[in-house]
């Protein structure tokens, strides 16, 4: 056994003083801030210390109706009349403004959602900016993107985003929608509205015509009203498989185009010829990135039997130096769990894992006394049929299983209703291609994990949803095709 380290890190807190939070946020409809017709507000809480952040408007069906009306009007009168090149210029401008405000956006994201500042600063926000920049360039090249087919905008897109990557998911949805000529009504997740509202300000500053982007904050009922609205042409949803299926059902019999990016239980496979230290680091990133609140998290680790003991030993050792702490602290590796509700879900799964007879390992670390935190958790001796190996936990919980042959691991990896992503660690290029062909997943990472890029299509097989976001393929979700 390797000796345990005993490092003490000096706290290095990013200052939130530069953020001027408003006491109360309204809905962003038709280019203006409008009080909700519902007259309701809800509280947004900082999951890092349970402190109150702001009151946020809780839109109801009437508010959604106003927003859709504004989006329709903007589509009919302005946006559909602009050339692709002009639309692209707005998107380029938005991308630049986002880059200029990246620090503020990063701090907001971390305050609101609990993710480590290191991640929001280095990953979420830059990727979100890049997504706008990338799709800006497509706006005047749509016809070239789909040779042999006539393409046109759909109209009004209703978009519902999750709380795990609030601004990034907004970018994944809004950027291609606008590039393709649609207008948008976006409903951000209730626990993470702030960066979407900041984005509304950026749209104003960019001079984006009123009504092209509308943001209606609220809970599930707000989203349901958006899905049910008869004048919405397209629904894009990222979130849980259960809610995705409800949305799917609501769209049947309507002419709404639908894309769903749902849950996952992605396999991460380490073969015996893999560079082990790199793979171990990759495992840490695959499951503990963003507290494991990642739809494509590598939550099922499969290690080839011959190296399993070594990998496990190194993983446990590495876990000792993972810093769970305040999200604004630049040292933090694992920040706060997004909400009390999610923390309870994760804790329920951890108890379930124990009840199912799996072996648990958690490092010795002290969690902050206030806020929602969870230790990084490994489970070994996990049966393939165990619920912790089958169901999405959406937290820093990893199940570890072993295998002997490639055939066996392909079978185990594919034995899931999900098919979002997979990871493969090996030194052999041919093996990467071979396994990639066999794994039923929309994204396969080789010797890396949780990598994203605006040019790279993302989306799942099976119950992980349908449609792709990113790249040329991501345009299809927002276009009407005719031969």
């Amino acid at each position, binding site marked *: 056994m390797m000796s345990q380290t005993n490092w003490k890190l000096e706290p290095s807190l990013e200052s939130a003083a530069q953020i001027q939070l408003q006491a109360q946020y309204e809905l962003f409809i038709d280019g203006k801030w409008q009080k909700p017709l519902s007259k309701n507000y809800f509280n947004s809480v900082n999951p890092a210390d349970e402190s109150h952040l702001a009151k946020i408007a809780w839109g109801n069906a009437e508010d959604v109706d106003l927003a859709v009306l504004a989006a329709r009007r903007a589509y009919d009168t302005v946006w559909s009349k602009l050339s692709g090149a002009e639309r692209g210029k707005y998107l380029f401008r938005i991308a630049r403004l986002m880059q200029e405000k990246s620090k503020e956006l990063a701090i907001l994201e971390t305050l609101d959602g609990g993710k480590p500042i290191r991640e929001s600063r280095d990953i979420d926000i830059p990727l979100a900016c*890049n997504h706008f920049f990338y799709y800006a360039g497509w706006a005047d090249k749509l016809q070239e993107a789909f*040779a*042999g*087919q006539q393409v046109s905008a759909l109209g009004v897109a209703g978009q519902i985003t999750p709380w795990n990557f609030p601004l990034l998911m907004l970018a994944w949805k809004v950027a291609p929608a606008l590039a393709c000529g649609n207008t948008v009504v976006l409903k951000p997740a209730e626990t993470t509205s702030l960066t979407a509202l900041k984005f509304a300000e950026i749209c104003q500053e960019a001079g984006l015509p009123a009504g092209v982007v509308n943001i209606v904050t609220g809970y599930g009922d707000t989203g349901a009203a958006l899905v049910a609205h008869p004048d919405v042409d397209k629904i894009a949803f990222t979130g849980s*498989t259960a809610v*995705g*299926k409800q949305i*799917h*059902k609501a769209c*049947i*019999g309507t002419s709404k185009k639908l894309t*769903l990016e*749902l849950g996952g239980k992605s396999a991460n496979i380490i073969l015996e010829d893999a560079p082990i230290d790199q793979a171990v680091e990759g495992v840490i990133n695959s499951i503990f990135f963003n507290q494991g609140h990642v739809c494509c998290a590598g939550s099922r680790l499969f290690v080839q039997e011959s190296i399993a003991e070594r990998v496990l030993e190194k993983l446990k050792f590495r876990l000792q130096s993972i810093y769970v702490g305040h999200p604004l602290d630049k040292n933090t590796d694992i920040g706060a769990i997004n909400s009390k509700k999610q923390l309870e879900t994760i804790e329920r799964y951890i108890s379930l894992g124990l009840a199912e007879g799996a072996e648990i390992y958690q490092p010795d670390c002290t969690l902050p006394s206030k806020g929602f935190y969870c230790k990084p958790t490994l489970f070994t001796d996990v049966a393939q049929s165990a619920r912790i190996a089958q169901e999405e936990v959406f937290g820093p919980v990893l199940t570890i299983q072993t295998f002997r042959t490639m055939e066996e691991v392909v079978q185990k990896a594919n034995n899931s*209703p999900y098919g979002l992503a997979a990871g493969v660690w090996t030194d052999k*290029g041919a093996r*990467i*291609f071979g396994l*990639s*062909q066999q794994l039923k*997943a*929309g*994204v*396969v*990472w*080789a*010797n*890396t994990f949780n*990598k994203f*890029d605006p*040019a*790279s*299509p*993302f*989306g799942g*097989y*099976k*119950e992980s*949803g*349908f449609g*792709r976001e990113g*790249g*040329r*393929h991501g345009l299809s979700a927002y276009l009407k*095709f*005719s*031969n």
Partner: protein
Amino acid sequence: MEILKTYKLYIGGQFPRTESGRSYAVVSPSGQHIANACQGSKKDVRNAVQAARKAQASWAAKSAFNRSQIIYRIAEMLAARRGQFLEELQALGSDLEGATQEVESSIDRCVYYAGWADKFQSLLGSVNPVASSHFNFSVPEAMGVVGVVACQQTALLGFISQVLPVLIGGNTVVVIANQKSPLCAITLAEVLATSDVPGGVVNILTGEVSEMLPTLSAHMDVNALSISPIEAKLQQMAQEEAIDNLKRVRIFAEPLYAESAQGLPYISDFQEIKTTWHPVEQIAGGVGGY
């Protein structure tokens, strides 16, 4: 004394009778009895799905060029049996001109899709310029087992138009044939059986759509559905049942003789896009000399 033909199901490359032992009368528009067809059951659906699943991996693993040749072989065999299809179509109420148009268009459509089998990948896939040191590429991949409710208006062309674009992409299919006019579908099975299409790649059931479709649309080992318009309630039921395992559902409603009834979109509708990130080693000091 005429030798009458017994029309059976086509499952796993075999021609079994329905396990239910039932049949129903196929009659011409004038009410004349033409033949008996198998009235397929829920169990037949499950058997067909099982056969389709068993055949899928190896069908998808064949080279695209090989699939292209096999589909072209279907066109050849179809052409060789022109007369039989013309007879059946006419018995079911087409005039000679209509029957001829349907058969010729079906053969043409086979040839058309045979040519697509090893080309759509180049158009649907991409190499994506990511910022990190990775070779990032997206390729289309078969969805798996696809359930097809064939066109209820035509006996042959609808079947061909729906099944071929699904097939060439490496999917296997379970087809519920035209309920009233199932004969061409079974004769087509005889074509398939002699066209090097491996057993289980295409499975054909005859009988009542309303009896078999609920099992097909709710089946957890079916990945997608292609449905020609059927009674609205039944269609909605199928779409709702399909949600359980998120089957991809497409409604095929194009006028069959239109240009737009064939093309790349019908292929891509039954393909998943898989994106792989392959590491690229950076060679220190490497210079692009020439």
